[in-house]
């Protein structure tokens, strides 16, 4: 029973493992290299950084009651266009530009949040309008043209590795492993400390076996990834940014009062209201935050492509929404975790990456991704129905 529960809770993680192994077998048999080639792992992070950021924000919107934000792709394009204009065309100070872009994103989010939360216009409609409006403004800003390249001074915050490019191979490997090991030690220390605290206060803690297994698994993954990254160029700066974003949002959703309000509102808005929660403000906050994270994603994207294009960000909203649902968020709100959304994003990333290496036609790739989304959500819904029936 206990093992069954653990399996159930981590279905997507297991599915991710299965998909990775499957691709690896197919890739190696087709003699097309390896999914786990050091440079490919590094690539995976670069390719999917924006999805992870957007998925974290999208999850908050979905939590409030299944509301989605269709405008994020267009917001990415518009903020990207602004970044291009400010940094490249106008030559404004880089840090000032970054701040302006982030504020612009938050303002866009607040604008949409106002209509959704206080005027109670369905999120679907407001963000559909936003999808057109911000894309239009992106085109206007750029005059339909692409701005490039961005100065190295800007891109180094997103595209480089730690340690720098001129470090020797041995230094790269050593530094990477050192960071990984310190992360592991820190994680172990924190976990052990909280477990001791729990025991001392007499709270129920998970079984020691499970506890050790979890920790070991986590450390093994961290070390394995670091090993591969170390063999390539080191730790991508973007990975640190992602880690910070993911950590903050996990903490926000699980350990803070506003985070709890998100779940309460999505679970039962009426009950939340009668418990004194200002649900309008919760909804407003979720969409403002989505705008902010969209602009962060925009900054990452322009750096990665080293250009600001009016077509940037197309379909990004779909990637983010799909990641949340694949990661176990409920389409009705109230359930779902940031961790799940991140796993969903990685899952989509691995699918993309694996299929590209295998040389599968990009049209078929879309088909496969669509089917995976449907199957993942159907699986979730059906298994929940069954557990209810029992």
């Amino acid at each position, binding site marked *: 029973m206990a093992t069954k529960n653990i399996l159930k809770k981590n279905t997507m993680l297991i599915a991710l493992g299965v998909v990775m192994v499957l691709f690896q077998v197919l890739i190696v048999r087709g003699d097309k290299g390896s999914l786990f080639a050091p440079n490919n792992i590094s690539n995976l992070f670069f390719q999917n950084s924006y999805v992870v950021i957007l998925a974290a924000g999208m999850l908050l919107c979905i939590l409030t009651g299944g509301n989605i934000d269709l405008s994020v792709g267009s917001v990415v394009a518009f903020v990207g266009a602004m970044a291009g204009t400010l940094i490249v065309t106008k030559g404004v100070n880089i840090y000032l530009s970054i701040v302006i872009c982030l504020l612009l994103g938050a303002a866009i989010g607040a604008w949409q949040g106002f209509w959704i939360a206080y005027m109670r216009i369905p999120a679907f409609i407001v963000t559909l309008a936003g999808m057109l409006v911000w894309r239009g403004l992106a085109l206007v800003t750029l005059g339909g043209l692409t701005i490039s390249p961005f100065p190295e001074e800007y891109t180094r915050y997103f595209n480089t590795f730690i340690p720098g490019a001129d470090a020797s191979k041995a230094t790269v490997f050593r530094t990477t492993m050192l960071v990984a090991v310190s992360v592991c030690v820190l994680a172990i220390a924190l976990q052990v400390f909280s477990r001791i*605290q*729990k025991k001392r*206060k007499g*709270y*129920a803690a998970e079984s020691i076996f499970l506890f050790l297994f979890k920790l070991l698994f986590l450390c093994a993954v961290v070390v394995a990834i670091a090993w591969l990254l170390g063999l390539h160029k080191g730790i991508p700066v973007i990975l640190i940014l992602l880690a910070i974003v993911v950590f903050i949002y996990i903490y926000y959703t699980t*350990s*803070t*009062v*506003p985070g*709890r*309000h998100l*779940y*309460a509102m999505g*679970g*039962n808005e*009426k*009950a*939340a*209201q*009668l*418990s*004194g*929660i*200002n649900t309008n403000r919760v909804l407003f906050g979720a969409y403002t935050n989505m705008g902010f994270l969209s602009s962060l994603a925009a900054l990452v994207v322009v750096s990665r492509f080293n250009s600001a294009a009016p077509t940037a960000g197309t379909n990004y909203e779909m990637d983010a929404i799909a990641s949340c649902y694949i990661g176990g968020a409920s389409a009705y709100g*109230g*359930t779902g975790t940031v961790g799940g959304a991140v796993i969903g994003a990685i899952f989509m990333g691995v699918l993309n990456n694996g299929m590209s290496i295998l040389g599968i036609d990009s049209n078929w790739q879309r088909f496969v991704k669509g089917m995976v989304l449907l199957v993942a959500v159907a699986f979730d819904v059906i298994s929940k129905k069954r557990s209810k029936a029992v």
Partner: protein
Amino acid sequence: MANYLLEMKHITKLFPGTRALDDVNLQVEEGEIHALIGENGAGKSTLMNVLSGIYPYGSYEGDIVFDGNICKFHTIKDSEKAGIAIIHQELALVPYLSIGENMFLGRERGNVLRVNWNETYHKAAELLSLVGLHEDPHTLIKDIGVGKQQLVEIAKAMGKAAKFLILDEPTASLNEDDSKRLLDLLLRFKRQGMTIIIISHKLSDIEYVADKITILRDGATIETLTKGVDDCSEARIIRGMVGRELSNRFPSREKREGEVILEVRDWTVYHPLNENQKVCDNVNIKLRRGEVVGISGLMGAGRTELAMSIFGKSYGRNISGTLLLNGKETHLNSAKAAIDHKIAYVTEDRKTSGLVLGMPIRENTTLAMLSKVSHNKVLNKDMENQVAREYADKLRTKCSGIDQQVGSLSGGNQQKVLLSKWMFAEPEILILDEPTRGIDVGVKYEIYLIINQLVAEGKSVLILSSELPEIIGMCDRIYVMNEGRIVGELMQAEANQERIMATILQSGKGA
């Protein structure tokens, strides 16, 4: 022997945890108007749902004999085919469709590919004239009043060639004139040979139309009175409705009354959608420290609306009146403000507005007062655990642990979690709306004990309940509410079920 059109024999219907109908017998003669009467929860609606196939054959015990045949209705369509039509209290009309479209909803004229609108509207007009409603059948339902909507429902039933009509509280939302018109229509149908069952709380209506009256109480038939044979006076009927004994189901407590802590003056609330409808009309109530006050009334009397409008204007619009807390005028504009002023409102509907069913007990317990388990908006989960466990122990909530999802608990334990949540908010004034609805007797007693304990701690409790024994057994003072107004005030010593019922019914007649 009389010619019974309908006989319901030994009907027993069980719901999880309760016996909604217990060996009910009902006999209705052809061509009579038969009234069904009883308190809320006596089983009237359940009985009619059994009859009309909403609860299918097999989900109840006993036999339904209609027109000489034993009926096995599986859906409402089956009973309609047999000629039984039921008109529910909440009308089943689509507001943005026309009268004609509504009347033939699900039985559209013409065929799948082409609806014959000419026939639809022609037939509709014919049926409407039958019920004496002179409206263009193209009019949208939302544009006609409730009284006319009721007539549309009846016309719709006539269109199904019904010979047996069931009306559940048809006059509840009608004014005097419309009620009279409707009742006269029923009498005319009767003369034309129609058989009718009418459920109503308005004794005057029943006196006017009914040939026989069957009284239900606690899911059982008590008696059937025949007009002209038996005594059908109001007093007689009320005695039949409430005549159960008050056993020792309520724990006693020491009386202790302090100063007035809550006072509501001239409180008027309008319906949130229908701006001309007064839901609470000039209500004046007082609550003292350490006092348990009850508000009694039938469903739809406006109790919940009153409580929710006091609780940070969570219901209604154009709220006017004065709210005094500890003698000081206070404006509460949100649920948060109410909670901050130490008021708690425990909703009557724990599933839709009380608990977040997908969340564990722990998170539900602290939801109304997260500031007590957090510091700078960061939750202290250890403290939260401790609090949740403390309340689960204190209220003896049966659960596998505080991380169990609330949705998987039984009704009584859900109610305890809901109470924990509001006790944790440390209110001075607790408004309990139907605190023991759908809970078995043992847990009810526990909840009464909790109430007494709260009072002993100096808190004040306002109980809203449609269960008369509960109100009488628990409250020091009782307000009787009907149609949005306070129509009476009784002390515990002088309160009994007959008096409360009589107060309600008499006030209804005067209006």
